[in-house]
């Protein structure tokens, strides 16, 4: 669906943000883009949809260069930024004016999403809180029924029940013809939703693997006392004890701890690159 080939991008001539970065997004997945602040998560999303043009390399969506801003491509992609922009009108008026631009927009699903988030469709958008506006915007984004949905920090500003509702709605939307990209630094919120983890660090992709692949390569455990067992890749003291990552040599199953994995990726990127590219 989206193909990023050897892209270079920089905001200043001196320091490139991305250098020969490549990535492919396919249908049927929920990608989690993880990275520190300033790692370039949002910029990469913008590059992928043609909001920012790459210096070299190619970004293609459905085989078309995204710089062309082809409407046949744009009506299959929806990008929701972290801070949403909504005019001073009711949700219903907004839908009436904007929904027509996406031929696949599903009003029934939009109403379903609004109901799930407990949002009144007649409410004025500007009179809503930031979280409510975000819920309305997420509902609209989900209802566009596009093939590629890019959501930048979607859970920022959402209350705890709404985060759960968002996970449920997003999960029920994904099929073989659709993919969702979630850019976040709040990994705990989306841990159960993401099926492919993409970690960005210092202008490169350190990790781009599915949860299954990560599980078969790494073993995640929490131990009360740390006695330096053999082959520990990463350890971190948490309130529950030590979160430990070791190579999964015995092929045991474990639940991926995204936060610990992210710390391993950013602190020991070479270890991760060697492990997964071996």
């Amino acid at each position, binding site marked *: 669906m989206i193909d990023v080939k050897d892209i270079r991008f920089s905001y200043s001539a001196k320091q490139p943000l991305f250098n020969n970065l490549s990535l492919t997004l396919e249908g049927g997945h929920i990608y989690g883009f993880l990275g520190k602040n300033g790692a370039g998560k949002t910029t990469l999303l913008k590059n992928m949809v043609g*909001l*920012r043009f790459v210096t070299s390399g190619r970004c293609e969506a459905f085989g078309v260069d995204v710089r062309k801003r082809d*409407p*046949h491509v*744009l009506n299959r992609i929806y990008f929701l930024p972290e801070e949403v*922009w909504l005019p001073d009108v009711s949700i219903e008026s907004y839908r009436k004016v*904007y929904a*027509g631009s996406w031929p696949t927009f599903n009003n029934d699903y939009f109403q379903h999403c609004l109901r799930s988030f407990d949002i009144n469709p007649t409410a004025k958008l500007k009179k809503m809180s930031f979280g409510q506006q975000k819920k309305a915007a997420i509902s609209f984004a989900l209802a566009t029924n596009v093939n590629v949905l890019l959501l930048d920090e979607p859970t920022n500003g959402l209350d705890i029940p709404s985060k759960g509702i968002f996970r449920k709605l997003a999960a029920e939307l994904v099929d073989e013809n659709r993919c969702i990209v979630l850019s976040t630094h709040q990994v705990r919120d989306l841990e159960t939703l993401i099926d492919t983890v993409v970690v960005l660090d210092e202008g490169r992709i350190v990790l781009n693997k599915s949860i299954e692949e990560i599980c078969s390569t790494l073993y995640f455990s929490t131990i009360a006392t740390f006695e330096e067992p053999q082959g520990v890749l990463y350890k971190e003291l948490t309130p529950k004890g030590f979160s430990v990552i070791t190579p999964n040599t015995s092929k045991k199953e474990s639940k991926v701890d995204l936060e610990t994995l992210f710390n391993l990726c950013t602190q020991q990127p070479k270890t991760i690159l060697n492990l997964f590219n071996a």
Partner: protein
Amino acid sequence: MFSFNRFYEQLKIVLFHGTRKHGTMLLIFLLYFLLSHFNIFNHMTLSDKDPYSSFELITVLAAVLSSIEVFGRLRMVNSGINYLMLPATTLEKFLAAFLYTTIGTFLVYTLSFGVVHALIIGGNNLTSSVELAYSFPSAVELWNVFKTLLFIQSLFFLGSLVFKKSPLAMTLLVIISCILVFTFVMSWQFFHQITFDNNLLKPDEIGSLQAEDAFSMIKNALTIGSWILPFACWTAAYFRLKSTQI
């Protein structure tokens, strides 16, 4: 490939935002136009002055204000993302904004002013013994207003895409600077030509013809410029919109 359906959707969005922003402005101008029919300090009797004297200025002003705001969403990141991600070609988005700020503004102002004027004169003719002529602007007058509107609109239309901060003030600054430079160059050329010609000619041959030639040259340059400049501005605005990044 141009799609009328997508263009219609874009026009709908532009109208939606424009109506909300400029509806109040239209009402204020209409009120002014309505009051300009009357002698306010003389028992609100109908004035002898031509109420349409300010029509050109008001219509052009409305076009300037709508042009400067039509791409206002591109000045902020989140609203800009929303605009650029709308599924339509740059041409469709450009045409929607262009039509709204030119023909749209002109038609709305011409029709609403016409209706107000007709109601006032018609009302007077019904209630008073003195029958007044409607005196609507002629087609030629309207065409001249539209030409002026196109010329001025093109400058602010481009300005709204070029200047992210204070586009109205910045565009005005650029226009004033250009006028000053143009005036200086033309004055220099004008005096240079007259002085140069006078040196070659005998005193009795110096007539008003040289001055007329120089004026005619400036007039021709201005006429050609008044047609070329809007097209240059619209083309520049189109490519600026096409290459906008957020």
